[in-house]
């Protein structure tokens, strides 16, 4: 990795490209990189993009915790980020834990709102920094929410991409299959193959994830870093404050 920018900044600018065209994006409490990417998207759009942070006093919901889910179910939210203890090749996500349910070998928090959000938000970006055979698996041990559904099931939304520390995949819903879209600088397609537990499509010529655009990096380190200090203080201290 070059010294010109940090790994987090590369990911933020990549995710911001994946958000192009959205009007309304909602962001969870433990998602600083998607959060920064949403703020960057908002800045580029001259504030036409609306961003709701679900945590903290500045969220704009006034009808309690259900408002986000009601808005999502109505199709008002264009993009959302989900992760997973495990993600498999059909984009099924497991937020409960690996191993046989219910005891699991390591229990995690739970499925949160994924079992609705994943179906109804048109552009769900899977974001999981750890890229390893234990996180990207052939088949998840518990389906918190499935990657695709049979045609009869009401499903206007679903996954469009997967972003990790190594690479960016696009997801083809009709084939229920990931395709390697780009590999981050200083990594190689072979490494991605080694570290991925599921099979995926790979173009003959693999692109490298573009470096952050200079104007976006400037926005990120300026006004967006300021807002990140309040929204995600620990992330801000680690990524922006030391610079």
């Amino acid at each position, binding site marked *: 990795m070059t010294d010109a920018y940090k790994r987090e900044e590369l990911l933020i600018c990549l995710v911001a490209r994946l958000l192009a065209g959205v009007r309304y994006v909602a962001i969870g409490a433990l998602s600083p990189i998607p959060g920064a990417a949403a703020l960057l998207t908002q800045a580029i759009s001259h504030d036409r993009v609306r961003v709701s942070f679900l945590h903290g006093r500045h969220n704009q919901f006034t009808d*309690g915790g259900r408002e986000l889910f009601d808005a999502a179910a109505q199709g008002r939210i264009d993009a959302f980020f989900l992760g997973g203890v495990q993600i498999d090749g059909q984009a099924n996500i497991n937020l409960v834990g690996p191993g046989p349910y219910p005891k699991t070998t390591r229990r995690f928090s739970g499925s949160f709102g994924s079992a609705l959000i994943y*179906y109804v938000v048109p552009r769900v970006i899977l974001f999981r920094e750890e890229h390893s055979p234990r996180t990207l698996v052939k088949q998840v041990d518990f389906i918190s929410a499935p990657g695709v559904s049979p045609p009869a099931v009401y499903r206007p939304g679903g996954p469009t991409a997967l972003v990790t520390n190594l690479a960016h995949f696009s997801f083809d819903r009709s084939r229920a299959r990931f395709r390697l879209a780009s590999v981050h600088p200083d990594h190689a397609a072979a490494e991605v193959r080694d570290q991925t537990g599921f099979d995926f499509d790979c173009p003959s010529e693999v692109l490298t994830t573009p470096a952050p655009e200079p104007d976006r990096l400037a926005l990120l380190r300026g006004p967006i870093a300021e807002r990140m200090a309040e929204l995600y203080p620990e992330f801000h201290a680690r990524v922006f404050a030391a610079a």
Partner: protein
Amino acid sequence: MSAELKTVSIEDLISEISDGCLLGITNELGGVSMAATRALIRRGVRDLRLFCLPTSSLQADLLIGAGCVAEIDTSAVTLNEFGLAPRFVSAVQEGTITVHDSTCPAMHAMLQAAEKGVPFMPLRGLIGSDILRHRPDWKVIDNPFAAGGDPIVLLPAVAPDIALMHAPMADRDGNIYIGRRREMATLAHAAKRVLFTVERIHSGSLFDDEALATGALSGLYVHAIAEAPRGAWPLVLGGEYETDSLHMHRYVQMAATPEGFAAYLNAFVFNHAAAAE
């Protein structure tokens, strides 16, 4: 309408919560009565069935670690930025509690059915998930208003035996200020009995001031109130105080082992004076 609100002690407040109670609680985006939670542990309540709107953090972890919980219906238990909930994780892996894994909007919807007095609420999503597969009490029907071929999940109404929450203030008539955290109203409307701890008593009526009235829960739904200044500590109470991060870090360290957790209970739950109340 009395000149002064009759409050009860925290011990009297929780005396209604008996072993096996289906207890409705919110996460800290609403108000969590940690003061009453510690009192429940001191009293030694057993076999609680927690219904979390829609998740829980330290409250569930403490109750589970102290052996007070038989079952939990929730979409997550997590200490959020402080990490996984150590006693919850341990209890699930050892099989000492039963978890009914859910999803956030389902927790809201089951209470919404109860507050409307209808037997069920439909919800999109869920079909094809293992959440639904492990929920024999949730049904899939064909949408009767469509021409056919539109499966949708029905969730049963849930009316918790008791809802336990914490809020900034109660007024002299027993109305509670909950602000914009309307899920507290949903839970109160759905539950059979509603218990509140509050930071303080407001001398007038919340309904005298339109700005306060918009954030009020009518006393119609409230059965008992205890005063508990800093009663959500060490969790946040919106508009009042922030999470005690130092304490939460300390909890995470201590609760990593059963011995450390026992020491935590001794220091901050059984030793009444050490806790904020």
